[in-house]
């Protein structure tokens, strides 16, 4: 005989899960009792939302679904923001929650919450398991759904008695058969042909690359395509890292907070090939501004994204991996007309400007710009949300590494827990966090997770004692009335670091900051660097 809880552990093992992030509670105790003896590593976070963010960071760096676990009621509801964040950014994730016993369901007992109902808008799919026998099928389906098609979070809610009940034997299904879920991954040959024809005829083609290029694991092939055709590339926030920042044909991030040259390229292009991006309002605020004569090719795994935000002439539904291979096979020897290449090269010179320096402060954009060279080329930079996100998105010179941030939901407090997940997925890579003093305080409780596991994560706090991005908005649209954007009562972050036993330092100039960083890159211990930033430093 085997219990539901043991089956849950065995299912995770069958899926090759080696680490889960979670927080226990009564309704998930049977599972915790079984994972205790298993080979799966459980990382105890300090609040459930961070378990979901850690699973997200893990998934993005490992290419496999991240797993987070919480108990019923508040444990489960705390996960929601993390699940929603993963949903908007299409991150594969399995969220496992305990639930009250099936005979008590719906009776508002202690720590009962309808979590499948509450998460409905934010999950790709969810299960409330009501038979122990169903567990293997549910896990198999959940991992399949989370990691195929347009990836996303799947929630499995498991009542306590379902975890306790025993069944005869455990058999993990080999195949899934979900009648209503057969994602189309192969691009349509005729549409590919039309796309190739349109590209061949274009004078000023442009690629807009999104997170889909990264999640499909086709980055290098994508770079080959761009190299071969010389088509210039701009990216969305989620697409940062598809090309090395210094690549001659890469013009940075587009959108309201992006690079002027990227937006200019979008405006002047006669053909735009959108690859694995949904083009949200921050990317293309006014889709009609894309010139009337621009031909749009849109490649996405999710048919619902095509034509949703931007009018599309050539839709290609499929996995970027398959479509990119087909495009490479049929593009022939097309290269971009010389004139457009020269234009792009001239623009590229304007990509990075040197911002003014304020005495006694760190200039964050310059610091971020120099950061990459100080770390190894595959470094993972995790940016939080706020001005720090824009500073990073526009200035970090990514090489072969990753840039992680929450693009769709813009969840403050993402960076530290996501970095924890990233570090577990890629223990040998440099992992750097950049956050503001606002976002740091949203998840600084995770310093315990970092210290407890001695995770080599370098945290840079851009301290301006402001909620800088909102403050900027207030300056622009609300007559400079700084309602609730001045951070009062902030703790001494160095003492916080000290309390957790984490090495730390403070910098008030770029030179000082860079010297400190150069001194710590080789260390295998976590580090917190507090950079004092001039409060009126703009985002862009």
């Amino acid at each position: 005989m085997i219990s539901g809880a043991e089956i849950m552990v065995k299912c995770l093992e069958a899926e090759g899960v080696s680490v889960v992030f979670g927080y226990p509670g009564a309704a998930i105790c049977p599972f915790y009792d079984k994972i205790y003896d298993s080979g799966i590593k459980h990382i105890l976070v300090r609040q459930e939302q961070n378990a979901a963010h850690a699973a997200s960071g893990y998934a993005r760096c490992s290419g496999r679904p991240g797993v987070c676990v919480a108990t019923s009621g508040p444990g489960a509801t705390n996960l929601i923001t993390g699940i929603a964040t993963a949903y908007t950014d299409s991150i594969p994730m399995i969220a496992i929650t305990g639930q009250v016993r099936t005979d008590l369901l719906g009776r508002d007992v202690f720590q009962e919450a309808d979590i499948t109902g509450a998460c409905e808008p934010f999950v790709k799919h969810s299960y409330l398991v009501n038979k122990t026998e169903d567990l293997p099928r549910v896990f198999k389906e959940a991992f399949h759904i989370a990691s195929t098609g347009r990836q996303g979070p799947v929630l499995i809610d498991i009542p306590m008695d379902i975890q306790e009940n025993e069944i005869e034997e455990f058999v993990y299904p080999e195949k899934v058969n979900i009648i209503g879920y057969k994602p189309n991954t192969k691009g349509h040959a005729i549409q590919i042909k039309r796309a190739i024809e349109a590209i061949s005829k274009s004078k000023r083609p442009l690629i807009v690359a999104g997170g889909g290029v990264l999640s499909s694991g086709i980055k290098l092939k994508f770079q080959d395509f761009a190299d071969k055709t010389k088509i210039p590339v701009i990216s969305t926030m989620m697409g940062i890292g598809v090309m090395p920042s210094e690549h001659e044909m890469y013009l940075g991030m587009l959108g309201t907070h992006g690079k002027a040259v990227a937006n200019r390229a979008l405006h002047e292009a006669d053909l735009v090939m959108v690859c694995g991006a949904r083009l949200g309002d921050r990317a293309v605020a006014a889709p009609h501004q894309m010139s009337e004569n621009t031909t749009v090719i849109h490649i996405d795994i999710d048919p619902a994204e095509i034509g949703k935000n931007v009018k599309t002439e050539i839709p290609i539904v499929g996995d970027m991996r398959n479509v990119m291979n087909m495009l490479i096979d049929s593009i022939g020897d097309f290269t971009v007309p010389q004139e457009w290449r020269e234009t792009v090269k001239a623009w590229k010179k304007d990509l990075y400007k040197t911002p003014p320096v304020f005495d006694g402060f760190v200039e964050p954009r310059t610091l971020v710009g120099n950061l990459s060279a100080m770390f190894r080329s595959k470094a993972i930079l995790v940016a939080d949300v706020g001005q720090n996100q824009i500073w990073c998105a526009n200035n970090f010179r990514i090489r072969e590494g990753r840039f992680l941030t929450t693009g769709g939901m813009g969840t403050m407090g993402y960076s530290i827990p996501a970095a924890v997940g990233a570090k577990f997925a890629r223990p040998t890579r440099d992992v750097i966090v950049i956050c503001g003093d606002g976002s740091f305080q949203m998840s600084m409780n995770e310093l315990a997770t970092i210290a407890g596991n001695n995770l080599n994560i370098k945290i840079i706090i851009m301290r301006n004692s402001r909620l800088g991005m909102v403050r900027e908005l207030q300056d622009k649209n609300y007559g400079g009335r700084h309602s609730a954007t001045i951070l009062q009562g902030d703790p001494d972050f160095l003492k916080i670091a000290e309390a957790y036993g984490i090495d730390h330092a403070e910098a008030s100039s770029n030179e000082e900051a860079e010297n400190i960083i150069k001194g710590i890159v080789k260390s295998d211990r976590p580090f917190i660097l507090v950079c004092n930033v001039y409060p009126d430093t703009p985002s862009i």
Partner: protein
Amino acid sequence: MQYTLSILVENQAGVLSKISGLFSRRGFNIDSLAVGVTNDPNVSRITIVANGDEYVVEQLEKQLNKLIPVIKVKRLNDGDFISRELILIKVHCAAAKRAEIIKTVEIMQAKIVDVAQSCVTVEYCECANRVNTLIDLLKPYGIREIVRTGTVAIDRGTASVSV
């Protein structure tokens, strides 16, 4: 533009809330909704009548297709399908007016299914337009109560919506 969607779904708990939630979440309005099991007991069919322009309908179809328990979504083409609603109307009916009401009900090919001292209950099964006509005709007598199902619809001829 009014349109009719036929949706085949897996017959399991929570599917209806997933679908109705999708409508409210994305700001789409439902005019009517009807659910029932099909010849396959594992599959239910939902018929939704809703309003929106071409962009809205296309988005809706795509978003519905993304729901895992949704097996198939088909937009029924105007004029190519038969649709029915069932309505029960309780009409105020003074003795002097009874003959008039019976005549109206006969002309519309509806049926009186219950009679009391001061009212009659009329049953009618027709497309939404004809149902509305009957309501208009009976309104002057005083309608006490109406119960109406959502529209169910099926393709004309050999076309069908199946798994």
